[in-house]
């Protein structure tokens, strides 16, 4: 006690050498925000989320309901063709079938045409990796070192272009839409480009450099399941041919699930179809090439409009409505429990 003042840290005096620094970090006294679950914060979070979810849910359901969609399963309707395709030796025989449908009301606005596949496991791991991105960029690559096998090279060493299981299994039905207008049949004009992502079209896929496409792909062969080589995918449009063909690009973007739909064509809004598809009878003319019976698959053709939230899938809207309702109800339950408990507590305290 006598020397006490010597040991009190004086201001300005140097601390003893081993004394720890008095910093907020080292003394664990950093200023901090200490949120706690209070009744106010919990209830407000529940009610606010509930209200938000309900609002969004209603909007989503309304907009999803405003989508017009026509889905036609043509795997049965073209049963002759599908039987023909079961035997792969008939690969070069053509098979056509047509599917009729009637629109009671016209579909207004942009109309998109999709093909849908069911039970086609595009997300299988071996399948997903079976491609060569470098080849699709137009680079000359050693196919044998890519993951394309067994669809990499033929036995004689000719590389496939494009290689891999994805490319090989490309959807090759052609679907045309005809409008039966006053006993005359008008082909609905369809846009075959602009259906893929800009990045895919312009960055991810490029044809090899050469003065023309057929020479660019010289020394390669088409994949075994293809009917024509890659440089003949679209003979009319040079910029939609080869690797940068939209149908090809879209197919190469593999789906996440076994059931999926890919954008096939868009209705070109000219003449009769400036407002969309008018009411009336229509026919799909389908050149049936893609076999699905072997894997018990189904094929659809879909005509649909879109809204800001996408297509007609009502899932998000319903999910939002359900969670909004649940959150609000839980909010009420929590409030009820809390106030009941508090009443009990104050009751006990009074006694």
């Amino acid at each position: 006690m006598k020397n006490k003042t010597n040991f009190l840290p004086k201001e300005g005096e140097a601390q003893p050498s081993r004394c720890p620094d008095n910093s907020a970090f080292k003394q664990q006294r950093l200023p901090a925000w200490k949120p706690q679950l209070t009744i106010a914060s919990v209830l407000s979070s529940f009610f606010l989320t509930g209200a938000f979810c309900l609002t969004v849910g209603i909007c989503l359901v309304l907009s999803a309901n405003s989508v017009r969609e026509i889905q036609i399963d043509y795997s049965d309707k073209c049963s002759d063709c599908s039987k023909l395709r079961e035997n792969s030796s008939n690969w070069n025989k053509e098979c056509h079938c047509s599917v009729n449908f009637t629109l009671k009301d016209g579909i207004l606005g942009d109309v998109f045409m999709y093909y849908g596949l069911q039970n086609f496991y595009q997300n299988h791991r071996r399948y997903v990796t079976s491609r060569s991105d470098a080849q699709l960029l137009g680079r000359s690559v050693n196919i044998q070192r890519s993951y394309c096998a067994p669809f990499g090279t033929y036995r004689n060493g000719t590389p496939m272009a494009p290689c891999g299981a994805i490319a090989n299994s490309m959807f090759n039905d052609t679907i045309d839409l005809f409008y039966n207008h006053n006993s005359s049949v008008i082909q609905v004009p369809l846009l075959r480009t602009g259906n893929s992502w800009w990045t895919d079209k312009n960055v991810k896929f490029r044809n090899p450099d050469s003065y023309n496409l057929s020479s660019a792909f010289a020394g390669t062969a088409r994949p075994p399941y293809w009917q024509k080589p890659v440089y003949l995918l679209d003979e009319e449009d040079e910029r939609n041919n080869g690797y940068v063909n939209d149908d090809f690009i879209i197919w190469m973007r593999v789906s996440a699930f076994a059931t999926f739909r890919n954008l096939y064509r868009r209705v070109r809004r000219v003449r009769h179809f400036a407002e969309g598809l008018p009411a009336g009878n229509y026919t799909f003319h389908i050149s049936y090439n893609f076999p699905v019976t072997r894997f018990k698959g189904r094929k659809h053709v879909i005509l649909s409009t879109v809204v800001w939230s996408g297509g007609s899938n009502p899932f998000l809207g319903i999910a939002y409505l359900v969670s909004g309702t649940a959150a609000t109800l839980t909010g009420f339950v929590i409030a009820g429990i809390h106030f009941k408990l508090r009443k009990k507590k104050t009751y006990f305290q009074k006694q």
Partner: protein
Amino acid sequence: FISVEIIRLGNSFYIDWDRKMYYPLNDTPAQARTTTLNEELGQIKYIFSDKTGTLTQNIMCFNKCSINGKSYGDVYDMSGQRIEINENTEKVDFSYNPLADPKFAFYDHSLVEAVKLNDVPTHRFFRLLSLCHTVMPEEKKEGNLVYQAQSPDEGALVTAARNFGFVFRARTPETITVVEMGEIKIYKLLAILDFNNVRKRMSVIVRSPEGDLTLYCKGADTILYELLHPSCNSLKEETTEHLNEFAGEGLRTLVVAYKSLEEDYFQDWIRRHHEASTALEGREDKLSELYEEIEKDLMLLGATAIEDKLQDGVPQTIETLAKANIKIWVLTGDKQETAVNIGYSCNLLNDDMEDVFIIEGSTSDDVLNELRNARKKMKLDSFLDSDEINIQFEKSSKKQIIIPDEQANGVYGLVITGHSLAYALEGNLELELVRTACMCKVVICCRVTPLQKAQVVELVKKYKKAVTLAIGDGANDVSMIKTAHIGVGISGQEGMQAVLSSDFSFAQFRYLQRLLLVHGRWSYIRMCKFLKYFFYKNFAFTLVHFWYGFFSGFSAQTVYDEWFITLYNLVYTSLPVLGMSLFDQDVDDRWSMLFPQLYVPGQQNLYFNKVVFVKCMLQGIYSSLILFFIPYGAMYNTMRSDGKAIADYQSFALMAQTCLLIVVSVQIGLDTSYWTVVNQFFIWGSLSVYFAITFTMYSDGMYLIFTASFPFIGTARNTLSQPNVWLAIFLSITLCVLPVVGFRFLKAQLKPTPSDKVLLKIKEAKKRPPPPSPKRRLRRTSTRRSGYAFSHQHGFGALIMSGRNMRPKSPFATTGTFSPNSDKYKHKGL
């Protein structure tokens, strides 16, 4: 799991850096010598403590006395109220006495007044203190006296006498030189009636320079009261009152008395004494007979009270630790009386206890019976055949058994001597000892060897599923420190061995409560939170793949981008959880010290066990379900707002991984209860880094350079611009987090754990102004009389009388040193 090491290291550094565990007097900060045990500090159930140097400073100081019915030592203010003694209290000025020991502190001025006024009983009292002892003086320089005392108590008494003007200056076998109020007096030392365990008193017979023969005696009150002259009965009552008061404060008391002797009688007695001391047979008996004959009809002088100075804050620390449900075992080499005495003075034992059992049997059977009786009293059920533990014994006869905690029907203490402990530690008694001892709140083992200390620790480790901590300062504690799960060394007086073999070290016992209740608790909670979150985030992450397996033909296709899988644990989620486990505090240090109950969940390992793990897993499963099926549902058979397809694998992967990352980030935000700047930075930083990295990796340039590595080109741009993707992400977050919020809140409301209740109390208390510091000196109301202060063995009286040891260098240095001038002598409050 590198994170685990970083967290441990960080928390160890916090211990090193803590200024509240820094002892300025010898410039010692706390030190975490191992970094792997921090979280166990939050789970301690048993503390094994050394006494000397750990609980006490091993310094005695003369604190109070009662002279002729008047009590000295307390300080009163003008109105007669007793004032707490603290460092500001004015000390008695001993400057009139050039030989006074400057370190000695006394606060009651009236005693000096009495000395100065030549009050006869007061003078006689101090004369007695300066004469009746076996202390050896050493005066290397003129006026610089150093006393070598066999026990620190004696030294304290002689030093007190010295300061009040009765300076014991020198001794020869026949004489004692005393400077009495500046006047040199040489007393002839005629006999020393030495101390032993039975007598519990010692006397000297001296002849003053004036020629008076006097016997001075000091000893335990119970013994001396029997020997008093009937004429001092009234004085006896007053003194008894004072003694009770002293004892109540945990002081070690002695009664002093004197007797004037007749010349003739004494000559006769000394002759017989001489005969007896040279007798060949039964010398001891004859001598003690003689002693008893002369030590009677004593005149009571008063009583002394010596404080065995505890280290600062020891009683408070022990009280706090006891509230935290930590059982404290004191293992000491001291005698039973001393140990029990310290037990009372540092609040280990108190009068609120139902009973304090003393095990001192000297055969195996005695010990067994004593242990059984103790247990019978504490918990009668434990002898029934239906008792669970007994059943368990029968089932697993020879195997390792873990004894669950048993609840006694009250608060009990147990004192066991080293001798009995030796029996109790043998084979079949082990279990009995553990069961009985662990039911008691406090166990004191006295006269134990260093090996036994380790054995006791080993025993508890073996039969109890509990984390043990041993704390000690000396070489004799090393074995115990090494045996316990956690060893703590007091870096103090007794060298470095204990510190070197310890896991943690600091300078004062009182820092233990901060180490356990603050650092230990935080470390434990942080580690548990880390583990919980770690398992949660990985369950949520991994199980999504499991669900995806059902939709991808079980082809082991990953849901996420491979880069995301690589970076998820490494970059995106590592820093926020690290930030949480380095900075999180549910309550700050002040509150965790004020509410030691908050420590209890750690002991029972409530924050991370199998149940908690399963809960984490369930939460992870739930989250993974949401994290898979919401993106699935949102993408299934739908398209983007521009009509292009959205359900491609890459878009789905990006959406699912963004959902996951945001959900686990929100979850860590929910777990964090202490948001420092660093936490904010880490959480927001990680999210931004995720988006930055994602956009970079999915950019054109990266694809054109490393075509094979970054096939996700353009996915981020194309997908994250879609409103329904963000709506799906928001929905997943809501569905993952909101139920957790609700569940936690309702759980705290409906089934509050004890710590929830404490937290609620704290929350309420925070609204009020902060409570006053609880550092009030504990008033003990014990009426228990402390034992005879001389706890040493047979004294050195004979040796002194023989003169054989009268060399300048004292041989007592090996048995215990009391040197008031040494630097060790520090006063309370510094």
